């Protein structure tokens, strides 16, 4: 469960990106965070894995107050979250397989188990058979799918994705969204930030609308 309670975030310099945001995302729920550029979507998502800390208010992730977590505890929080970044953050000096297997290197899996899980994650996003390719050789949509595979390889209970369909054509964007729906159907909580109103059309899912850092009712 993810719970925001009167959360505000002010960056050094005085600019307030989020103002008194309150919402709860139940386990297994699927929700969008929508809003125009600068509305505070990315900031909101960054507060969940404690990439940013709230200036005030409380962010609870599975009962943990992430704003109060010590630096040493952050890796363990992040391993239980699947994060898909706006710029994907792929490593272009490594193969597709190595990118997906990276989160497993930190955990307790044996090399054989890690390889099995990495292939399974690639299979789920339709990239099995491209293990040896370099991410540069993949299309934009495939790179996004690779980023999703890396996010789910540790089988997290929650997926948090920041603009995962940005810079993709409508068809690719729909395909990416279908992958998230598939994970949600097996019980994974999903929170996706998007500025693309067209993407929300036809999706009967909860939408958290942000404007000027405030959550609209």
């Amino acid at each position: 469960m993810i719970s925001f309670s009167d959360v505000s975030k002010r960056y050094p310099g005085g600019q307030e990106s989020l103002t008194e945001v309150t919402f709860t995302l139940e386990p297994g729920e699927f929700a969008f965070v929508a809003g125009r550029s600068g509305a505070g979507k990315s900031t909101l998502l960054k507060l969940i894995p404690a990439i940013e800390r709230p200036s005030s208010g409380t962010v609870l992730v599975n009962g943990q107050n992430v704003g109060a977590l010590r630096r040493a505890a952050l890796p363990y929080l992040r391993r239980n979250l699947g994060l898909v970044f706006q710029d994907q953050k792929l490593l272009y000096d490594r193969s597709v397989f190595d990118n997906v297997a990276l989160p497993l290197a930190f955990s307790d899996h044996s090399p054989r188990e890690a390889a099995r899980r990495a292939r399974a994650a690639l299979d789920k996003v339709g990239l099995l058979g491209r293990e040896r390719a370099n991410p540069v050789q993949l299309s934009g949509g495939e790179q996004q799918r690779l980023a999703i595979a890396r996010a789910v390889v540790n089988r997290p209970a929650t997926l948090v994705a920041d603009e995962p369909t940005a810079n993709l054509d409508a068809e690719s964007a729909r395909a990416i969204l279908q992958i998230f729906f598939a994970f949600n159907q097996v019980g994974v909580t999903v929170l996706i930030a998007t500025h693309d109103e067209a993407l929300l059309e036809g999706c009967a899912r909860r939408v958290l609308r942000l404007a000027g850092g405030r959550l609209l009712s």
Partner: protein
Amino acid sequence: MRTWLRHHWQALALALSKLLAHKPATLLNAIVIGVALALPASGYTLLANLLGVTQRFAPQPQLSLFLRLETTRPELDAVRARLRADARIAAVRFVSRDQALKGLRATEGLADVAAALGQNPLPDAYVVRAHDLAPDALDALASDLRKIPGVAHVQLDSAWARRLAAIAATGRIATGLLAALLAVGLIAVTFNTIRLQILTHAEEIEVSRLIGATDGYIARPFYYLGLLQGVAGGLVALAILWLAIAVLNLGVQDLADSYGSAFRLAFLGAGDACAMIGFAGLLGWLGAYLSVSKHLRQIS
């Protein structure tokens, strides 16, 4: 425990692969570190050889009482009695002039000199070992022994060895200072190498952090990199030292042969060589640790 060991093994393998991926840079770094380490190591080795020589020739300070050539048997006995009665003296050994000549003939490099002598010019002598080996006590004893009738000359045999030991001690301090100075240099070299490695891998470090890598996991390959770089430098230093000793021994051999001696400069013992490699590795690790502590925080 198995996971911990596997993570260390992976970090070591990654560090090795990084070193091997940039062979020219690795080699140059190892040479820089090796040359820096070879200087104090050479000083240490030469001092060890010097101390070996001094200990061979003067294991303990002793006083030699040379009697007048015309000393008679009763006078000899009287001197012996005086020496035996002195409480400050621990042991007395008589060396007759015939024994002294025999010893001279047996001494490396002096056999020719002894053979050239027409008659035995050496006096009878007593070699005395004192209870108190302090320099002042030995000087006082020597002064008193000179007053015994029949004694022509008293020589404190350890004086030269003590001077040599003092020179060696000074040399040891100088070597230690040089080693400390160059150790700082080695740490600085490793610090900078690791800084560049961290900057090169900034993106990978950032991504790893975001998806759940601990600081320890991220830092470990850099620690191993510093350690391996230090060890490689230590091995290069040993190679330089071995080569230097081999070349120096060509000259030492000629010099020693001219004295009829088989003396040669000895290489570091196995223990010292291992300690040197370990020390180099430790300094490399320390440089990496300092660099990682400073630069890893800057990547977030």
